[in-house]
Every structure is written in structure tokens, then in C-alpha cells.
């Protein structure tokens, strides 16, 4: 079994044991939230693997939530049907959004997704008869799958984390085979990839739609889990929050999706709990500032994300441990007449001539 599979199996066992070992129900709730964010972040990381960054992921997250909530609440359809319908609708929406925006160069694409996020959030607030406006939608039905009703935190925990694993393995398979090579080629150079016959626009569209579907899945689960939705969890701030998770985890590292979501969510919770305790007079703005400082520090010391950073750190430690201890001056035996003459180190070849 490869190291990665072993890690995946160990993580699955550990996560399966958490509800039984968790000291409080809060831990299970927190892990549920992390699981939902991890699914969205995994979608963003898939997008990052093709060299794209989105600031509109909360829009798809919200569309998934509102679609499934409205269909199940107002039409009485079962969530087992409304969730796939929500995913289909979001996939179609992402395709329509992707046709004009994916042609744009990197930063213009980011701005376009930002615009989409703002438009969708404004619609959630303004379409009061449909969405309930700023007050949101209440009394969303709980999740009932064929043969089982999922109502408690623990039941949601197992469902959410099963789906995290499914989306993780799907993302891993996509990025580690032929498609993954194509995505890496696109990430390296779109012109270079196109020149080799990689269908750049098709792959970018597929990944964009898939990342939107990931967000919609998390959104639909969120709606049936919390059973109340309003526009605020799907605002621009949420899109930024997801992007931060992806960047902290490592924008092109699938495992980074999981760890980035966990690290940022836990960090957020710690700051919210600890800052008022340590500095009782400090307002909420300072909490955000401390959060910002910590993120800047992470970006300075782990610019490729915490997963890559941890691997680099481990490699550095292994290398320094393997290096032989320096020989003290004078401890070396003096050369004798029988020793071969010392060899001068070879000069580095000039650029372009190396190894030719």
C-alpha cells in the first residue's frame, strides 16, 4: 500500500472514531463545518490545478443551498432528488458563466468570478418572494435518504465526511492521471499545452463546472443540515474565506483542501474565542486584524501552502540529520606521499553548455 493510501486509510479510521471519542457535541459540529468547507475548497484546488482562481465560489455554494432548499420546502420534493437537481442546475449555471469568462486572462477571470459572486448575492437579498430576502428561508426539511432519516449531528457527520472522502478521491484521481498531466501542462503554460494538443478550453471548462458542483454539493448539505439559510453565509466574504483555505492548504495540492479548510476554520474559532478573553476591551475588528496577521505569516513562511511547507520542512530536517558531523580542525590525518593528489572541484558549465 502506498504512503498516500495508507494515510487515507488512517485518516478514515481516525475520523470514524471521532464521534465516539469527541468530548463535546461542539467538536462534531465543528468537524461537520470543516467537512463542508473542505468540499468547497477541494473544488477550488481542482480549479487551481488548471491555473485558475475564483472569487465567486460562494455563489455556487449558495445556489446549491437555495435550489435544494426551495425545491424541498416549497414543492415538497425529497432532498434525495433536490440535491442532484441543485447540482445539475449549478453545473448548467457554471457552464453559462464559464463560456464568456474562461476566455479571459487570469486576473480578469478572477474579477469576473468576483462579479458573479456579487450578482448572485444581491439576487439572494433582492428576490424576496423567492429567497425570503435578508431574512432568509426557514423550515427547510431535514435530510431523508431512502431508508434513513439524517437528523442528528452525528448522522450528518458520517454523511458529510463520506462525501468529503468521495470528493477527495475523485479529485485525487483526476489530478494524478492523464487529465492531471493535462491540467499541470495548462498550469505551466497554456500556449505550450495547446501546442501539444491539450484541449485547454475544454479542460478549463470541465474543471470550472466540477468545482462549482463541489461547492453546490456542500451548499445543499449545509441547507438541510442547518435548516435555515440567509444570504450572509454566501457573501463575498465567504468566497474570500474559501480562497484563503485553498491558498493556506496549497492551491494545487489536493490534501491541502482538507488541511486548509481545517486550519483556517480552527484558527478562526480560536481567535473568536481567545482574543476577547485575553483582550476584553478589544473589538471584533481587532480579531479580524489578528486573523489577517496570522495569514500573512503563513504566506511568508509557507507560500506554497502548509502541506508543501510541512513536506519541505521534513525534507530539510532529514537532510540535516543525515549530514555527517563536521570533523574538528586538526583531527584529519596529514597527507602522506602515497595519497593521490587532491582533485580540484569542477567548475559549473556556462548556461546552455551544461551536460552537452
Amino acid at each position: 500500500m502506498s504512503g498516500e493510501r495508507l494515510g487515507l486509510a488512517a485518516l478514515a479510521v481516525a475520523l470514524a472514531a471521532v464521534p465516539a471519542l469527541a468530548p463535546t457535541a461542539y467538536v462534531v459540529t465543528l468537524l461537520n463545518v470543516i467537512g463542508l468547507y473542505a468540499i468547497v475548497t477541494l473544488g477550488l484546488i481542482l480549479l487551481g490545478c488548471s491555473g485558475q482562481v475564483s472569487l465567486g465560489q460562494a455563489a455556487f455554494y449558495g445556489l446549491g443551498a437555495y435550489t435544494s432548499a426551495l425545491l424541498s420546502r416549497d414543492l415538497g420534493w425529497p432532498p434525495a432528488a433536490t440535491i442532484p437537481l441543485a447540482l445539475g442546475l449549478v453545473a448548467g449555471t457554471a457552464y453559462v458563466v464559464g463560456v464568456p469568462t474562461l476566455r479571459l486572462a487570469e486576473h480578469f477571470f478572477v474579477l469576473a468570478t468576483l462579479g458573479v459572486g456579487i450578482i448572485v448575492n444581491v439576487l439572494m437579498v433582492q428576490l424576496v418572494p423567492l429567497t425570503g430576502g435578508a431574512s432568509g428561508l426557514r423550515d427547510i426539511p431535514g435530510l431523508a435518504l431512502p431508508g434513513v432519516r439524517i437528523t442528528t449531528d452525528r448522522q450528518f457527520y458520517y454523511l458529510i465526511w463520506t462525501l468529503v472522502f468521495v470528493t477527495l478521491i475523485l479529485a485525487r484521481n483526476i489530478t494524478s492521471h492523464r487529465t492531471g498531466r493535462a491540467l499541470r501542462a495548462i498550469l505551466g503554460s497554456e500556449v505550450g499545452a495547446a501546442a501539444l494538443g491539450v484541449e485547454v478550453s475544454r479542460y478549463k471548462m470541465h474543471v470550472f463546472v466540477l468545482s462549482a458542483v463541489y461547492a453546490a454539493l456542500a451548499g445543499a448539505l449545509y441547507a438541510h443540515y442547518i435548516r435555515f439559510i440567509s444570504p450572509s453565509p454566501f457573501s463575498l466574504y465567504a468566497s474570500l474565506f474559501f480562497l484563503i483555505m485553498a491558498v493556506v492548504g496549497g492551491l494545487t495540492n489536493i490534501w491541502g483542501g482538507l488541511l486548509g479548510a481545517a486550519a483556517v476554520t480552527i484558527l478562526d474559532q480560536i481567535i473568536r474565542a481567545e482574543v476577547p478573553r485575553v483582550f476584553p476591551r478589544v473589538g471584533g475588528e481587532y480579531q479580524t486584524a489578528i486573523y489577517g496577521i496570522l495569514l500573512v505569516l503563513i504566506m511568508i513562511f509557507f507560500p506554497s501552502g502548509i502541506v508543501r511547507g510541512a513536506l519541505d520542512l521534513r525534507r530539510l530536517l532529514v537532510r540535516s540529520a543525515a549530514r555527517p558531523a563536521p570533523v574538528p580542525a586538526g583531527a584529519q590525518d596529514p597527507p602522506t606521499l602515497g595519497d593521490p593528489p587532491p582533485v580540484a572541484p569542477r567548475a559549473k558549465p556556462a548556461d546552455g553548455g551544461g551536460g552537452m
Partner: protein
Amino acid sequence: MTAPLLEVCGIRTRRGGIEVLHGIDLDVRAGEIVAVIGPNGAGKSTLLGTIAGVFPPAGGRVRLAGHDLGRRAAEEIVRMGVCLVPERRQIWSGLTVRQNLLLGGYHRYWRDRAGVRADVARPLRIFPKLAELIHRAGGHLSGGEQQMLAIARGLMSRPRVLLLDEPSLGLAPRVVREITQTLEQLRRAEGLAVVLVEQNVKAAMLVADRVCVMERGRIVLRGRPAELLAHPGVRSAYLGKGYEVAG
């Protein structure tokens, strides 16, 4: 005289709303090397990109062995036998030499996975140095090795026409000579047609059968290398006044 393998007729290309190519005509026969020289911004790379389908043409026609390439997508044009080796090599630095080569056969990997894997041996025979570096990351190769890898990767697509964009950029003269010798072998042994865009005019003149001079999106002069070397404008603009023709 044989019929042209690649025909470019009156190609016009716009980039960023500005017309960069104003009606380019060019033809290349099998086993022929045609060099395109000219100053920066002349539109040489855009011409190669247009032939390869990376930039859609606004007008004109590109034909390969009589088949219209029209506004086909780049991947389809690669499948038909035209491969672009882009400027600055565009090696995937995180992938090994072997993975870079496999990406070269990307368009037929689904249909012929074993064939693509077996094909890796072919460019390694042409560039034996790469065989020694097969598991090394592309980013850890020298400039010359990267250029060899870029050409080898292009050959993985089994092209009939190779479009080479500034292969000598930043390389030592010895490495440039080695690469041009390889091009010579390829065109003789396999009848490969090459369109070579070069700033290194001396290197281009030595290897090309015909040379086109591009300025501001137009071909302003064309002929055999000896004819252009005798042209006072070409000599003063690209070779320097004291340049003497070797051999």
C-alpha cells in the same frame, strides 16, 4: 518540384484588437527548412501560433497536404501533423523528462497508450543526452538540454511539420550547432518540414533552404540564404557590415 506540404495564403491575425499579420503567404515542402527572420514585434511568433491554431486567423487560409486547417482548434491541428515548439521552450519544470515527453504524445494517449510509451525511445535516440536525464525534473536541466527536450517533446506528436520558435534563444553557439545538425538529420531521414523562426540570423542562414524576412506583420523579402546574404539591406540590418559568408 514537389507540391507544398504546408501552404499559408494571405493570413491575417488580430491580437488584442490589433491586426498583427497583414496577409502572409508562405509554403513549405516536405524535407524543407524555411527560416523566418525579422526584428522583435514583426509577428514571427504570431505567424507560428496562427499556423498551429493557438491564435485564430481573422482571414486567409492555411492548408496541410491540401487539407484546409481553417479555424480548427490547436489540438486538432496537432493531430493532423503540425506541432509548435513554442518560444522559451515552455518545459514543465515540475515534470520529469519522461513525463514531458509523454505529454508530447498527449493527443493519442487515450487511443494508443502503449504506442506513446514505446515512442519515448525515438526522441531519446535522436537526443541521447536526454536518456541519461530521463528521471530528472525539467526545471533542473540546462538551457541546451531544455531546448532538446522541447524539440523531443514536439517530435512525440509525430509531426509532418515542425514549427520552431527561437530554438537558439540564450544558448551557447556549440549547442545551437548541435540542434541545427539534428534538424538537418530529421529533415533528411524523415522528410520533416520545418518552419524556423529565429533572431539568430547566422544560425538560420546556415540551416535553412529558404529564408523569409518579416517586418511589421508582412514578409518583405524572401529567397535562398545566399541571395539574402548578398542583399545589402539584410547584411547591414541583421549581420553587421563586416560579415563574411562562411564556406
